[in-house]
């Protein structure tokens, strides 16, 4: 497992950006900008690993209870608006596109476009949260929020005779709010990070030799998108047919 960057002492001219060592953003314990960038990147990937395991615990809870209480979970799932969920999925995917474009602009030193794409990413992220808020409000109105006069009167599609177990339905919603709530919290943090990037970009902090925060916050944003890519089918599409 050799690691070429660990043994690079001086690499002047070897990479684009001859001012690697002299860059104003170079921190004292690094040899050059390349090492610094690779280090930051690995750090972000490892952080994302912790996020995978963090959400993973909730996926585990979901998996267990879905297997144990499938019919009740299916009925509960059918009561959340799949149209809004699908739309939100699309919104988030587009925001990933704009984020990727933002990183690209940073790589090419296109400051104005970078800011524009970051703004769009933020806009789509905020839209996602707005839709989520509406969905939460709908659930509140229907008394589907655990601990707040919970009462589920939905039926299981195709099985009108089946009496949905109220408590198991409440379990579904506990998991629904925990998972989407945690996801939304990560989106809010993401919006904060976007705001930081926008301000920093406008101040000219990034150039072709240094755009590490844009890249790494981009990784974070895409990760939050990937979590939703799984949340959507698991929460909204347990069963949408009469089967």
């Amino acid at each position, binding site marked *: 497992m050799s690691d070429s960057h660990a043994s690079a002492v001086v690499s002047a001219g070897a990479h684009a950006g001859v001012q690697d060592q002299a860059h104003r953003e170079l921190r004292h314990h690094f040899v050059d900008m390349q090492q610094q960038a690779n280090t930051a990147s690995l750090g972000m990937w490892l952080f994302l690993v912790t996020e995978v395991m963090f959400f993973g615990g909730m996926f585990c809870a979901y998996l267990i209870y879905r297997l144990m209480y499938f019919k009740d979970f299916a009925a509960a799932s059918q009561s959340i608006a799949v149209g809004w969920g*699908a739309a939100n999925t699309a919104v988030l995917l587009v925001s990933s596109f704009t984020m990727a474009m933002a990183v690209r602009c940073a790589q090419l030193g296109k400051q104005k476009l970078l800011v524009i794409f970051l703004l769009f990413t933020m806009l789509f992220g905020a839209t996602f949260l707005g839709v989520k808020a509406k969905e939460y409000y709908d659930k509140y109105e229907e008394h589907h929020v655990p601990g707040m006069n919970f009462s589920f009167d939905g039926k299981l599609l195709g099985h009108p005779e089946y009496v949905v177990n109220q408590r198991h339905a409440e379990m579904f919603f506990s998991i629904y709010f925990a998972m989407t709530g945690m996801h939304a919290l990560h989106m809010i943090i993401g919006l904060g990070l976007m705001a930081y990037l926008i301000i920093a970009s406008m101040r000219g902090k990034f150039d072709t030799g240094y755009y590490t925060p844009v890249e790494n916050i981009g990784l974070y944003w895409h990760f939050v998108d990937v979590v939703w890519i799984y949340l959507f*089918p698991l929460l909204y599409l347990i069963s949408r047919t009469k089967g």
Partner: protein
Amino acid sequence: MSENEHHVVPVKLYMLIGGTLLFFTWVTYAVSKIDLGPLNTIVALCIATFKATLVVLIFMHVKYTSEKLTKAVIISAIFFLGLLLTLSLADFGTRNWL
């Protein structure tokens, strides 16, 4: 990552991937309305995994990095999450055997 610094993905590819992701979201939604029994879940998750893979490989530049460590890190995450899920399932799934 070393190569990420310098590999710029063409706009067209990003747009293609973005479009593919949106298309398969629609597919997921459409297929869910057809009764395939247990296959519904499998199809939905397979599409989700396909979408996630596209995001990771292209949007997150994993396809373009020369750094094997990145891929090792991703695979470890999936592996250990898998451990959590499968070994827990070993308990809950076999409770009623006997």
